[in-house]
């Protein structure tokens, strides 16, 4: 069906082309013809007009020049030739048979002109050329008329056109036939497939009734159909596989990106070296750790970027050792690029199922641990020294007591006093050490209760009084009875108070005084320990609550501090969300004040310890 339609369209279009060609040819011929007629007409008119009137207008009966124009009668278009006077009277005329000279038109200003005279009774239009007669003064004019072309084309061209048309007529069916013949098998096959497909979908009832002669085609069609089915199934599978693999590719990419982000976010720096020792992966953290930018490290051998001999040695060991002998290995070093850091570098072989992917190096900032360890060592050394010093003194005094004590009672008294002091100093140090250790371990949790402050202060005062009196120091208590209650851990707070009072007594002179006072403000209670002691420089005052800080004593008297009392006091006060302030002047004593928040008075029925 489709092929037939194509054929028809082909034929139709061919015919249209032929018609177009013919029309164009005709137009061209007509134009050519008109030009020819015009040239001839104008030429004849001009030549006639140039002639004297007498020649043109012969006397009656005598033959004129116009007659000679009859010689043109072989031109089938010739209509007439005439000489007309101004009044339209025809002075002479020659006509082709059956033709009347039409009335003359007025002469054009331009002289020679042409006009078209519409078809009259005789049925043919005439093209007239006319011009003024040169020899005549009046408006005598020469006119010559030609029939307008009637036949569309000259008979002589007809065979040519016919030949072209014929050739086309012959060619079109030929082309059509050729095309149709070429396509016929395909069309047949397509038809067969369509039929077969229809039969397949309708359970092939038609197949059974198909004549045996179609069997081959049918088999072919079936085979082809099957093949097409398989092919399309396969294409679908491939498409699905492609989509699936694209999705899994994206998933892998996502996973890989996520993994990289995770690795980059690790606080440790990571380096992956291939088996040849070149870095294939490095996280940004290595720059702050090693002082080497990632760009300098990537795809570079270790020797090119690593300035740390320890790290180089370890990596070299990993590269040279056999697969199975490489276990994890950790070193600790100060990186050359960042000397104030302490790093742990752990190298480990990256082992797959049966192959090595190289070496993984994890760089961890161990600066804090290192400092903590150092601080711990320092602490132990310090405590050992602090314990050794009183032991040393006790030992020496003991020896002196043994050697000279019997002879000299003054020496005996001094030795006993010093030994007592040193023992006290040591036990105070040990107690404070234990408390500091508890505090720093976080195991010291203040159990805060509502406490009547005046009782607490009175207790502390009673405890310290004997010691103060032993040193010849006057201890005063200035606390109002109706002092507001505070929320403190009684035991801890007692340690803080004792430390302040001990210091006030210790760093004092005989005859001096210590005042334990408590004042109540709008929001807080201030407990002050004021002494008339040796005081401190502003620099010492800044540092006096630091752990193990001891004010350098310039006098001859040895007071035996250990640098933990005020540290501990400050920690305890902070544990109670309070504040320890120190006001001191060298040589004029010090005031240590504990500022505590008042407890709201509304808890009237609250438990008061």
């Amino acid at each position: 069906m489709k092929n037939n339609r194509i054929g028809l369209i082909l034929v139709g279009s061919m015919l249209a082309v032929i018609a177009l060609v013919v029309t164009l040819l005709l137009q061209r011929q007509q134009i050519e013809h008109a030009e020819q007629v015009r040239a001839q007409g104008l030429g004849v008119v001009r030549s006639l007009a140039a002639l004297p009137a007498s020649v043109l207008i012969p006397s009656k009966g005598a033959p004129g020049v116009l007659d000679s124009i009859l010689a043109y009668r072989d031109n089938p278009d010739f209509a007439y030739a005439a000489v007309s006077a101004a009044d339209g009277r025809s002075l002479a005329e020659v006509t082709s048979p059956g033709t009347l000279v039409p009335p003359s038109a007025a002469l054009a200003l331009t002289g020679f002109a042409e006009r078209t005279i519409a078809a009259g009774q005789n049925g043919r239009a005439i093209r007239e050329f006319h011009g003024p007669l040169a020899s005549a003064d009046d408006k005598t004019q020469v006119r010559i008329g030609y029939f307008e072309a009637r036949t569309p084309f000259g008979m002589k061209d007809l065979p040519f056109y016919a030949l072209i048309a014929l050739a086309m007529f012959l060619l079109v069916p030929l082309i059509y036939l050729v095309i149709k013949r070429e396509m016929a098998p395909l069309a047949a096959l397509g038809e067969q497939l369509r039929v077969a497909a229809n039969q397949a979908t309708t359970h092939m009832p038609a197949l059974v009734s198909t004549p045996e002669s179609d069997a081959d085609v049918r088999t072919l069609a079936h085979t082809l159909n099957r093949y097409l089915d398989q092919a399309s199934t396969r294409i679908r599978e491939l498409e699905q596989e492609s989509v699936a693999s694209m999705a899994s590719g994206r998933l892998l990419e996502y996973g890989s990106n996520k993994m990289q982000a995770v690795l980059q976010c690790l606080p440790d720096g990571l380096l992956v070296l291939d088996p040849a020792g070149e870095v294939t992966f490095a996280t940004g953290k290595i720059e702050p750790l090693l002082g080497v930018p990632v760009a300098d490290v990537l795809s570079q051998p270790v020797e090119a970027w690593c300035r740390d001999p320890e790290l180089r040695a370890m990596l070299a060991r990993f590269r040279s050792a056999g697969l199975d002998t490489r276990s994890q290995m950790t070193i600790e070093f100060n990186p050359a690029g960042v000397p104030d850091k302490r790093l742990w570098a752990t190298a480990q072989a990256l082992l797959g199922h049966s192959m090595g992917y190289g070496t993984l190096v994890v760089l961890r900032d161990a600066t804090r641990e290192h400092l903590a360890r150092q601080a711990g060592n320092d602490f132990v050394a310090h405590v050992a020294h602090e314990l050794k010093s009183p032991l040393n003194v006790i030992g020496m005094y003991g020896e002196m007591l043994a050697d000279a004590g019997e002879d000299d009672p003054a020496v005996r008294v001094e030795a006993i006093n010093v030994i007592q002091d040193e023992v006290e100093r040591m036990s105070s140090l040990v107690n404070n050490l234990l408390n500091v250790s508890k505090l720093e371990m976080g195991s010291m949790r203040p159990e805060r209760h509502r406490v009547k402050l005046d009782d607490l202060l009175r207790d502390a005062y009673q405890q310290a009084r004997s010691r103060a009196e032993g040193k010849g120091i006057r201890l005063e208590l200035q606390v109002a009875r109706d002092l507001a209650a505070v929320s403190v851990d009684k035991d801890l707070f007692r340690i803080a108070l004792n430390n302040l009072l001990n210091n006030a007594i210790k760093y004092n002179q005989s005859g001096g005084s210590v005042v334990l006072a408590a004042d109540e403000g709008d929001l807080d209670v201030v407990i002050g320990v004021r002494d008339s002691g040796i005081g401190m420089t502003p620099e010492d005052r800044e540092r006096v609550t630091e752990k193990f800080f001891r004010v350098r004593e310039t006098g001859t008297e040895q007071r035996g501090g250990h640098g933990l009392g005020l540290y501990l006091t400050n920690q305890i006060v902070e544990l109670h969300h309070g504040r320890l302030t120190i006001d001191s002047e060298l040589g004029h004593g010090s005031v240590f004040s504990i500022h505590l928040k008042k407890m709201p008075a509304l808890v009237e029925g609250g438990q008061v310890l």
Partner: protein
Amino acid sequence: MNKRMILLVDDEPHVIRVLRLMLEREGYEVASANDGNEALDKIGARRPDVMVSDIQMAGMDGRELCRTVRARYPDELFPIFVMTSMTASGEREWVRALANVDFLEKPLSPRQLIARLATHFANAAPQPENTHAA
């Protein structure tokens, strides 16, 4: 009058107190300093016959004091005893570069110091005053 003079350098007043008492009982004249700088002042005023110094001191420590003394008075090699509780051999290396410097173990026994001093002065050129003036 011309007693042997011992310079004690320690930032622990108790140590100086005990040693002073004990040495004075043995007939020595005792001068004392709290740290290295004070010791140098005392040495500048009068050379001691023996200097006994602690190591760990604030200000100028014992190590620096010994070096300075030996550098400042290269011809006066009075014995120096440094008191130390540090037993690590590395801690004692520095002494080798200095002449006539020896260690006293801490905790210090005053008796031991007296014995060491007696041995030293007995071996040294005998002095007519090398008797207990007291």
